[in-house]
């Protein structure tokens, strides 16, 4: 099924890569300025959601299968917790980022740790947003559109 | 004999010799015997009261008359009681039941 809104399709095709790039921009700023995994995750998810709105849910599901969302949700949490375990294994305490890199004076370990953790957050938030969207959008309406 | 015709049928062998016991006459005879015993005993005690028959002299009233009075009063009061507090046999079961099966709320 092809949507008749040509302008929308063209514009969104231009916008979606930008949104994704902006999402990553927000994400990598999260470490020292407003931003971070939460916000970036929502932005990233909005790219997929926009795609789904314009090209239809089925197309979107081909681009980003629902199963990915489920795995991604889990993966994000896993990444987050893994950072904690990695720092444990490197001799620190749970989630002690300082041990992740020997350069303590510049706090390199802290940077690495935060970014790694934020990646986990990003993954989860993105996938959760998409999963929620799929769940709502995939629901068969109780009243069909014709009956309104 | 006014007893039912089949009164002997089905009786336990040991009870056969006693089959007359249920006739009204036997009851009357027993009653008379008991009455004689009671009256006789009362008379005997009155005559021999100094002979140590009276059990507890300091207890009021005639000891041997107590049961008569007590039982008679009790039985007669029983009528009042029946009138007062007896109810049809299904009195309790007519109520909604003692254990309420609760509804699932």
């Amino acid at each position: 099924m092809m949507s008749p809104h040509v302008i929308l399709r063209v514009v969104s095709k231009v916008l979606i890569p930008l949104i994704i790039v902006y999402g990553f921009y927000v994400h990598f700023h999260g470490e020292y300025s407003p931003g971070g995994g939460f916000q970036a995750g929502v932005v990233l998810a909005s790219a997929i959601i926009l795609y789904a709105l314009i090209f239809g849910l089925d197309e979107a599901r081909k681009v980003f299968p629902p199963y990915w969302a489920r795995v991604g949700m889990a993966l994000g949490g896993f990444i987050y917790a893994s950072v904690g375990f990695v720092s444990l294994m490197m001799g620190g305490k749970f989630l002690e980022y300082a041990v992740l890199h020997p350069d303590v004076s510049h706090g390199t370990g802290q940077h690495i740790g935060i970014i790694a953790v934020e990646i986990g957050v990003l993954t989860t938030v993105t996938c959760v947003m998409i999963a929620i969207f799929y769940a709502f959008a995939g629901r068969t309406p109780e009243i069909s559109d014709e009956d309104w | 004999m006014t007893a039912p015709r089949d009164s002997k049928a089905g009786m336990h062998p040991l009870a056969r010799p006693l089959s007359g016991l249920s006739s009204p006459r036997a009851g009357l005879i027993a009653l008379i015997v008991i009455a004689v015993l009671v009256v006789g005993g009362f008379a005997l005690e009155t005559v021999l009261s100094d002979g140590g028959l009276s059990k507890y002299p300091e207890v009021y009233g005639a000891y041997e008359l107590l049961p008569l009075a007590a039982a008679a009063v009790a039985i007669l009061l029983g009528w009042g009681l029946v009138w007062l507090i007896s109810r049809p046999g299904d009195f309790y079961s007519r109520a909604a039941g003692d254990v309420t099966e609760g509804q699932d709320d």
Partner: protein
Amino acid sequence: MTDAVSILNGVSPAWFLIAAGLLAWASPRSELRKALMMLGPIGALAAWFATGETGVYGVLDLGPVVLETFRLDGLSRVWALVFILISFINAVYALHERNRMTDGAALIYAGSAVGAVFAGDMLTLFFFWELTALASAPLIFAVGTPEAQRAGLRYLAIQVLSGVMLLGGAAMWASQTGSWAFDAIGTGSWAGIILMLAIGLKAGFPLLHMWIPDAYPKATGVGSVVLSAFTTKLAIYALARGFAGEDALIVIGLVMAIFPVFYVITSNDLRQTLAYALINQLGFMVVAIGVGGHLGINGAAANAFAGVIYMALMFMVLGAVLLRTGTVKATELGGLYKSMPITTLFAIIGALSVMGAPLFSGFVAKTLILSAAHHEHHDLAYTLLVYASAGVMEISALKVVWFAFFGKDRGLRVKEAPQTMHLGMALAAFLCVFLGVNYPALYGVLPFDMDYKPYKLASVYGQSQLLLGTMLVFGLALYFKLFPLKSDRTILDADWLYRRFGDASARWGAAMGQLLFDAIGKVLGAFISFVRLRLFNLFSPAGALSKEFPSGMMALWTAIMLAGVVLVAYFSPV
């Protein structure tokens, strides 16, 4: 004492009975169960004999409390002995029955009664006290009718309530005195009063007695035999232990001895008649305990001992009648002597014991109490007891014998009771006569030594007059058809209080509570919906969220509780 037996020295007889009961529950074959039912009491009896020395055995240290599970002394020996004896007799009597539930229950019931008697502290007592309740209930439930189910539940409720009160009282007592030991308590404290009420509930104190005539007639034929034997006598033991010489007990006992007279006369169910007679017997014992002293306690013990046996005999007789005819209603029975002459003989022996005819066990036991009352100069009590024994005991006994076995022949031609039942009844009947004739045997096991001769001319003579006089009145009443007996009537008793009034008021209370709850909810709900109405215009369709209950109610309660805490906190001192 042989060596084989002396191993058992210090082992509580209760465990034999309880173990046998548990095994009986577990064993699928009825032969095995019957054997267990005989072996349990025999083992218990052996243990009873083996432990010759009085003292405390079976001490269980549980940390905060020390449990004395086997305290053997003069008082506990008597009760334990008669409990063991009757459980054996019951085992013989019940040989014909095939019911796993009641077989095991009867044994455990007996065992827990023995255990309770031997309990040296109140926690052990409580444990066995509740166990008697739980183990005896199946004897009523086993009948299987809905009516029996309900009666069983009521019975259980009362019994458990008694146990709970006992525990509560014991806890208070322990916190006051620092000891859980079960010795003389007295009514000097609230704890004592609660304990007495707890015991009184099982002993059938006036107004607390209603479960006895309610439950006993509804048990199985065999069940009512054991029911009549243990629970109430156990309570008498507890009273004798804790409240000997308590004056209030004399009054209570007298009421118990006298008021059943009307019920004995009017009740149509013969087992109910016996249940009321039982209350009267208990009244005698309670009076004896209230009188106190060696003679009084001995009198209570002797009465309990003899009473267990002859009441059990009477219930056995009616159990046999119930088995063969299917009913024990006075108005449906009559002339049974023709088909059950042997049972009739036992019934007469039992009745003579109940009446207290000389040469029967009732006589040697009852004269002790009368003597005690007389000796302690409770003249009014004495007179009333004489009255009660005329009015209640004798009428009940006469009534059972007359209406079931003589009286109007209803043409019931049934088989004589099974041989095993006869054997059980014969054992009990033998004891009734044996203890009556050979009274030193009975007096020998009593708690206190005494030199008492029951067979004095005056006593025998007086008692005979009492008997004959009552018989005369009974006969006259029958002859002139003055006996107030009606078929198919329910005689109200104090159980009306909870079966009708209590039930109704509970329903009423529940309904009112619901109304109140609803009313509060409505008033508050009205306020909320007022606010919501305003909000509704802003946030339309409420949809799924509009369901107010229980979330809304809950939010409300949360707010109320918050307000409560805040208020309390606000007015609290810093």
